[in-house]
């Protein structure tokens, strides 16, 4: 990958990686850092990475850094308090969107991650498996579980709200 292609990656993919991290971590600063670190790593390895593989490389790097973040936060015992310290304030949505977002937030991290890669980025099971270091079947199971969990949550709300 040459410098022009790298800069093209910045232009086309930095928003996507940022959204992916922000939606998972809900922390603007850390998401910012993850984007910067991912692109810095891509830059350092650019000689050995083809342009066509850059997106996958970036998401893999970002995901690994997100996993590190989750582990660190859990280790510090701060995971329970994250909701209060998150600096990310989602936009005000109308209608179902906030409920769907809440359903998404309730998923375990790995289910949320594979679902975002699936729906946001359109990756297939194998590609998601490469990024998250899972088998195709594991990815499929996680996606099925995630959708069923979200469906049940949305269904329960609908039942309550009538």
């Amino acid at each position, binding site marked *: 990958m040459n410098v022009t292609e790298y800069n093209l990656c*910045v232009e086309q993919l930095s928003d996507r990686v940022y959204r992916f991290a922000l939606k998972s971590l809900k922390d603007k600063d850390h998401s910012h850092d993850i*984007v910067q670190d991912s692109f810095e790593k891509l830059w350092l390895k650019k000689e050995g990475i083809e342009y066509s593989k850059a997106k996958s490389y970036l998401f893999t790097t970002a995901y690994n850094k997100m996993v590190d973040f989750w582990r660190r936060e859990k280790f510090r015992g701060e995971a329970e308090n994250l909701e209060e310290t998150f600096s990310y304030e989602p936009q005000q949505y109308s209608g179902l969107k906030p409920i769907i977002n809440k359903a998404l937030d309730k998923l375990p991290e790995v289910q949320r991650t594979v679902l975002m890669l699936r729906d946001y980025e359109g990756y297939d099971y194998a590609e998601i498996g490469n990024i998250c270091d*899972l088998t195709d079947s594991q990815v499929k199971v996680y996606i099925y579980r995630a959708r069923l969990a979200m469906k049940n949550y949305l269904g329960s709300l609908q039942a309550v709200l009538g």
Partner: protein
Amino acid sequence: MINESNYHIFLDDFVAGLLDEALEMEFVAFLDQHPGILEEETLEESNEHLAPAFQASLKKEIPLNASHIDEYLVASMEGDLSSKQESDLKGFLEKNPQFFRNKELIALTKIEADLSISYDGKSALKKRPVFYLYTRWAASAAAVFILGMMLFRFLGNNGLPTEEIAGNFFPDISPIELPAVTISAIPKHVTQEDAFVAATVNSRIPNPKPSDIQRKHETIPQQVQNQELPDYTMEAHQLAKLELLPVAISAPSIPLDDQASNNTELTVFQWAYKKLRGKMGVPERVVPEKEIPQDMANIVLAKVAPIFQVQPNDGGSLIRIGGIEISRRSAH
């Protein structure tokens, strides 16, 4: 670790849906790698008791009935069903319209990215293209010497011991008070045998002292000595643009490098400040130059000079200034 000799221990719990999530995932992975085991264990008989979510991964066909309708609907949304299965599903829903609600709810689980969220640091992530300046090899080597001389002049070297020279690297003054080097001061001939080619500081030293700076000298080849040099005015100007050297531009006719003047990319100064933040234990982040505090700017400036490196390269030389590389190659 689930393997062929112990998978029986987990099988019953897996079928009953009693394994915790990590073990379930491991078991699914194991089955993936050993597809024959499913047939051997005649799981068909006990499939009805499998945790529903695993049906999809274990069997190609999900039974189409009321208890598995959600998995079927998810499979439909994921594009995992054959056209016949899709047709069966359509027929099933027509006969059981109460499940249309399930379909609607599952359709809602297709999430969409919030496109209003964007990353605001793109310009800082972008990189400047590598500059290839094709000159003769000898001229390249001489350029190394010239740049070394410029640094020596900047440091005020008069044959002082290394530590004294290095001491000049860290003057506690603001950037605008640093002595300027005029472009006309660039020598036109190679006159010395010994050229200063690199100044580095071990990045693992948190607060480097002048004595931590390592210098490297190289002998200029005999054939290069006393050779008349090309005009390196532009290179000097480029260094000034990078804020590596405070160069007083004495020739107003020097054209500005459009790429450099228009660039919104990472400057050496920004790069160095980002690294300094890392050393201070705060997140490394690129910030606009004007937002760098003055006292930090002084430290940054003192640290930029040591990261200036010139290395001989195949058929030329490679100049590294922070994250920016200038490659010089001899023309053939």
